């Protein structure tokens, strides 16, 4: 990738949307902006992966007239990474309300990502119309009982993808359900407490703003089974902005959307796409750098936006 100065980089990021690169080195997770990961980060035994979220293909609104174009720009950035990410996590809401043809468009664009594999979890936009039929037909294979949740190990780190949008309850909160929680407890039971854990799901597994449904009602039971681990990182989407929280050894992060921003919790009458000019929306997509150190160290977070 050509060297560009910081200002130029921020400007590019502002209109390109964003993805987050996660770097694991010796069990320590840290995150960088997708354009900022360089060969210098590729220490022996480390690897990188990328989180993409809330691509909302089919969205057309004031803040973004072409969500496919901004996703393509993010993919182009990912493809500029050296070394290439080991894999990509998509944390849901691929489509905007299961708009016809949207899954195909996402698949078409993500086919061009230079990585070994892309792991998915669904967002409520991907499943509400048909109870997840189309999503699971496409992405259920290889997951637990073809139901969408899954775990895998990569270079000593244990990754768990959870589905919390198929059992929406009365207040619209995410929900994991007893069967998935029981599976999770069994899945992590044999692991040593020193195993770094990464959990990814669409709706936050912490109470960001329950009034807007920005929480998972039965997440506590999942977290109980993760508390004994020295390093757990929880990656979510859904709220289209970066928020973070540290609770003991568990570090929570929410990712930005590649399509449009949503208002800060409680700052508007309702959630949903912010109705702002594209130029302003792209500034809000912004830039975040997070460094995670297991144990008792706090997160080091740097957020940069234009303006």
């Amino acid at each position: 990738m050509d060297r560009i100065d910081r200002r130029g980089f921020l400007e590019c990021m502002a209109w390109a949307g964003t993805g987050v690169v996660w770097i694991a080195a010796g069990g320590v997770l840290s995150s960088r902006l997708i354009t900022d990961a360089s060969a210098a980060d590729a220490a022996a035994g480390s690897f990188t992966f990328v989180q993409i979220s809330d691509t909302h293909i089919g969205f057309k609104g004031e803040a973004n007239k072409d969500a496919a174009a901004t996703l393509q720009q993010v993919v182009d950035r990912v493809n500029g990474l050296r070394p290439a990410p080991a894999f990509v996590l998509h944390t849901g809401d691929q489509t905007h309300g299961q708009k016809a043809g949207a899954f195909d468009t996402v698949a078409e664009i993500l086919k061009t990502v230079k990585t070994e594999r892309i792991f998915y979890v669904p967002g409520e936009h991907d499943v509400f119309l048909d109870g997840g039929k189309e999503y699971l037909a496409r992405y259920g294979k290889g997951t637990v009982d073809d139901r969408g949740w899954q775990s895998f190990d990569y270079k000593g780190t244990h990754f768990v993808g959870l589905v919390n949008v198929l059992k929406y309850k009365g207040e619209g909160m995410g929900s994991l359900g007893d069967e998935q929680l029981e599976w999770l407890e069994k899945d992590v039971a044999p692991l040593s407490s020193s195993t770094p854990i990464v959990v990814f799901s669409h709706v936050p597994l912490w109470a960001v703003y329950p009034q807007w449904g920005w929480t998972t009602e039965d997440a506590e039971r999942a977290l109980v089974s993760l508390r004994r681990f020295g390093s757990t990182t929880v990656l979510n989407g859904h709220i289209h902005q970066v928020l973070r929280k540290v609770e003991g050894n568990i570090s929570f992060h929410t990712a930005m959307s590649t399509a449009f921003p949503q208002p800060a919790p409680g700052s508007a009458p309702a959630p949903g796409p912010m109705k702002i000019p594209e130029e302003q929306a792209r500034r809000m997509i912004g830039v975040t750098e997070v460094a995670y150190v297991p144990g008792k160290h706090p997160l080091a977070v740097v957020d940069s936006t234009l303006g």
Partner: protein
Amino acid sequence: MKDDTRALASYRRGVVAVGVVTLLIGAQALAATPPTIGIKEFKYGPSILTVPVGTTVTWVNHDEEPHTVTSGTGAFSSAGLVNDDTFVQTFTKPGTYQYFCAIHPYMKGTLVVK
């Protein structure tokens, strides 16, 4: 005097006729503009609406976020509506129909058909 009486009777018939015509026009106007429920900022407006049996109701989503009009009993269900998409449903049976948005279940509405 007789002429005056006839004239008055004629005038009264005219008033009655005008009144009937006005009622008919009113009924036609009502039939031509069936009730519409707007969806804005994650709310159905009005959230409670009463209509006569046989009424066709239209929902319009003005949000950029998709919403649905989904009956709690499965009586009717829209697709995902977005950017001024509409959902039209005719209600031929009296009753109280509770509905919600399948994507945001805390959005709730009630339609009373009498």
